[in-house]
Every structure is written in structure tokens, then in C-alpha cells.
């Protein structure tokens, strides 16, 4: 007791992207933060594909973008929990999501964004489900039997029971963090905090690691106060935007879309596999990926 267990050093939570990705085993449920064309932890997403992860249940954002589409295209996702997979003006519907949904390649957990957060809340609150009103009378409980219509125990009102969406590992991308896992986003935080609260572990890639003093200068900005691990990843959301750092890379996004759409339209994966080889399995690491994008292209995204 006392003296023998003294530990004097606060541990750094900085990890390499490989270590963060290694927290995921086949069959687990992971969450990917961000919102449509912004704020996705792409360095980690690419690592998961490189690692050949399989049978993952992917909790995409309430509106997820092509990061989720890519995990489907690469065969990593067997289940998707997200109310939307698409890319706004780039593509109304993710092509791999469409292909996989039409051909029954994946299970889609059909739900509204309000159900999505009700399920994440249930996990965060350690209750088996949360009730929600909207959805009664629709076909959602028919196509997704996990959304159960029931009568509430107080007023006998018809409600939807949304089961807890328990996340094994959440992956987010944010602006800055100190080495102790105190993360701050720039501006809005999408639904990232709800994923953190529903997850057993949370790894956050950041544009910049900053001093603890900078975090403490404005503690109200701290959005994730206890990330399991922090990954240094400048341009870590590329080709999607990072608020205040860079805008989406339309050209690269369209390159992916063309490859995935070719799979959707023809059933031939050649273009898609070439994209994956060039930008995911090919590069040795995140910096090598960025080299392939090119500094001129990266710098062109800095104005907005």
C-alpha cells in the first residue's frame, strides 16, 4: 500500500495510426465521425482497409459520406448503421452503398437520424433502449425489426424502442488535442461527441497536437475530454474537409466516385480495385498517401 505503486508520469496518449486500427478485431462495431463531406478520420479508415478488417458493423455519421461508402466498397463493412450514405452535391447516394444495398451484400440498419442518436444515447446511458415517437406507422419497423413498436408503460402510448447502439471503437477527426487526449474541434462537432459517449474506446486523429496550456486556455472548447488515443494526422480527413484547415478535394472525391460508380453500373471491380491499390493499400503510410495526392493539390484546398 502507499509507496510501492507510485507512478509519477502522466502517460501520453499519442499513438500511431497502426496501433489505433489494431484496436479493431473482425466482427466488431466501429463508429466513424464527421458529417457527409467533412471531418472523417480517413488515415484510420485507410488503415482499417489495409489491415484487411472484415465483418465490421460500421456506425457512420447521422449523415455519413463516402468514408462509409469506401468501407463498403473495400469489403470491410458487413453491416451499416446510418440514416444516410451519400455525398450531397457530389453524389446523392453513395455508389457502393447502393450496389451493396441492392445486391444484399450488406445489412443496412434502416433508421432516422433521431433514432440513431436515441440508440447512441442508450449505449452511453447503459440502458437497453430509448423510446422515440417518430417512426410509428411507417415501414421502418417492418424493414428493421430492431426498431420495435410497443406501448409505453405509463400512458400506453405507441412508441418505437430503439435498441442501444454499442460501439467497440469510435474513430474521430478533430482540429487539435494535447498529448493527454483532451480534444478540441473547430466550430460545430457534428455528432462526434455522441459517438464518443457510446464507445468503449475512442481514437481521434488531429490536425495538430498542441500544448496542454493551449487546451487549458479555453476549456469550454474541449469536446472530447478523454480520448483513448490521439493520432497526429495533418490532412487526416483528406479528401474530406477539416473545419478551418481545408475544404473537400472535389477532384479526388470524383476520382473515387467514378471508380465506385463503375462497380455499381457494370459489376466490374477493376477501377475500384485500382483506386484502392493506388491510394490505400499502395502507400506505405499516411505521409506516403499525401505524397501521392501531391503538395500542390493539398495546398489548393487551403482557401475558403
Amino acid at each position, binding site marked *: 500500500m502507499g509507496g510501492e505503486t507510485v507512478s509519477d508520469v502522466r502517460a501520453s496518449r499519442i499513438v500511431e495510426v497502426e496501433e489505433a486500427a489494431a484496436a479493431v478485431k473482425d466482427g466488431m462495431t466501429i463508429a466513424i465521425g464527421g*458529417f*457527409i*463531406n*467533412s*471531418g472523417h478520420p480517413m488515415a484510420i479508415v485507410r488503415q482499417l482497409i489495409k489491415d484487411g478488417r472484415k465483418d465490421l458493423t460500421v456506425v457512420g455519421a*447521422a*449523415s455519413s459520406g463516402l468514408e462509409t461508402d469506401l468501407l463498403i466498397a473495400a469489403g470491410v463493412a458487413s453491416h451499416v448503421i*446510418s*440514416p*444516410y*450514405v*451519400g455525398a*450531397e*452535391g457530389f453524389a*446523392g*447516394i*453513395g455508389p457502393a*452503398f*447502393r*450496389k451493396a*444495398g*441492392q*445486391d*444484399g451484400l450488406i445489412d*443496412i440498419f*434502416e*433508421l*432516422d*437520424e*433521431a*433514432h*440513431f*442518436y436515441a440508440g*447512441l*444515447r442508450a449505449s452511453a446511458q447503459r440502458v437497453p433502449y430509448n423510446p*422515440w*415517437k*417518430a*417512426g*410509428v*406507422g*411507417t*415501414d*421502418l419497423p417492418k*424493414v428493421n425489426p430492431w426498431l420495435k413498436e410497443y406501448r409505453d408503460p405509463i400512458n400506453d*402510448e*405507441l412508441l418505437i424502442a430503439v435498441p442501444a447502439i454499442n460501439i467497440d471503437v469510435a474513430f474521430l477527426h478533430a482540429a487539435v488535442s494535447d498529448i493527454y487526449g483532451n480534444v478540441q474541434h*473547430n*466550430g*460545430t*462537432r*457534428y*455528432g462526434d*461527441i*455522441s459517438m464518443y459517449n457510446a464507445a468503449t474506446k475512442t481514437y481521434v486523429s488531429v490536425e495538430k497536437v498542441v500544448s496542454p496550456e493551449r487546451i487549458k486556455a479555453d476549456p469550454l472548447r474541449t469536446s472530447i475530454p478523454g480520448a483513448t488515443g490521439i493520432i497526429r494526422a495533418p490532412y487526416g480527413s483528406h479528401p474530406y*474537409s477539416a*473545419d*478551418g484547415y481545408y475544404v*473537400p478535394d472535389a477532384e479526388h472525391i470524383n476520382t473515387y466516385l467514378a471508380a465506385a460508380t463503375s462497380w455499381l453500373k457494370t459489376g466490374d471491380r477493376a477501377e475500384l480495385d485500382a483506386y484502392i491499390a493506388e491510394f490505400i493499400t499502395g502507400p506505405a503510410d499516411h505521409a506516403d498517401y499525401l505524397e501521392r495526392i501531391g503538395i500542390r493539390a493539398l495546398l489548393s484546398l487551403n482557401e*475558403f
Partner: protein
Amino acid sequence: MNETASPKEVMAAAIAHDLKDGQWVEVGANLPVPRAGALLGHLHHGPNMTVMIAMTKAYLRDTPVIEEFEFITDVGAMQWSEAYYQHDQLLNNQRHRANGVFFCGGIQIDRFGNSNMIGIGSDYKNLKFRGPGPIGTTNATAQNGTWHLVTNSHDPRVLVDRVDYISALGYGRGEKNLREDLGLPNGGPSSIITPLCVFDFDEETRSARLKSVHPGVSVDKVVESTGFSIIVPENVPITAGPTAEELVLLRTRIDAKGALRG
């Protein structure tokens, strides 16, 4: 009423005319018509509207030209912000929606005002066309005090007799008091707004009824472009498009780049 207005400008005006000062409205990205309609209502007669745009609560009446933004997460839009909205917090709370107005799309919309965002095909496990997913339409159409269906495609494949999957509930199959019996907080959709016309819903049958046709559009054109049987009243008025003042607001401040005229 300005005869030169484009169909989408007429749609935007129809949306704006129905908005009341003080209401709460979300403006999505990549939805030019509801965006323009909401902003027109805000600039024209809605100084006290709560406008949720690009993840902020914004007041835009001081902005000479409101640039379109391509992405809902566009940080450029935050120039107008009085508060951020964090998406999970927005969805975790619903009371503000009682005074809200929502515009619901659909890959299919039927005569009873149901919308389908899930997919097309009778076998859910083997859809002919996989849709984008419900996004927030299931909830928003249940919670908002007022809501409309909006489509840019007045086409028999979109405006169908019966949607394959109901992801947002309108009036079901026209059952009496369906929404009340389910305990839903609002009374159902007000209208379907299309590039050709506006439908409302018959009070008895709850089926779509032609409310007005846009300038230059015939009733026959609407009938042949619609996949369901329409209730056509004896007199069908012309949709009130933008006034001259509204058209100036649209063309100089809201849609300077002409997305509605393209």
C-alpha cells in the same frame, strides 16, 4: 406576379408565402428550392424566423448577397452564426419543432403524402434501386408543426399511387384520424410542391388535390405527368409566383448565381 419567374422560382415563392414570421426552419445544402424559399421568407417577411443553416443558427437579413454553400458543413456559412448547433443536440431535443416547418423529399411520394427514401422494389433484400436512407425525414415529418413534400421531378415514377416503403408517414392510405390515433404531434403534410403545381390534400379522403398550377402549366399536363389519380376541383387557380419585389430578392440576394433559373 411576375410572368418571367422560372418554375423553381415559383416553387420557392410558394414555399416562402406559406412561411410565417417567427417560425423555425432548417436550410439544408444542395436543396436549392427549399433553401431559396426559406431565405425568401426570412428576408421578405421573417425577421424573427429561426434559420438553421450549415450547422449554425443564423440571421441573414444583413447579408447583401447570401452565397450558396455546397456542403452543410461549410465553415464559410458560419459568418452569420449566432450559435452553433451540434447535430446530436439538435436531434436530442424536439420541442422547438412545434413551431417548425419542414420540406420533405422522396424517391417516391404518393397521393396520401407518404414519402419513400429507402428504395424501390417489392423485395427489401433485393431492391431495384437503393435510396439514400431516411436521413431525418421520419422524425422531422412527425415533429414539425408544418410540413410539405417537395420534389424537383414531377414524374409518374416519383409521384406514385403507393410508395414501396413509407419512411415518412403522410396520411397512410387515407384512414380516418390515422395520425391522431398514432399520437403524432402534427396533422400531416400541407402540400406537395412540384415544378408544375401545388397539391393539397382533400379533407375527407386525405388524397392529393390540385391546389394550383404554375403559370403556363395546364391541368392536363399535370394529370399526365402524375402517377396517381388526382382530385381536380372545378376551378384551379394559377400558383402565385414571386412578386416583383420577391423576384429581386431571389435574383440579387438569395440566388445570385441562378441555380433556380438553370
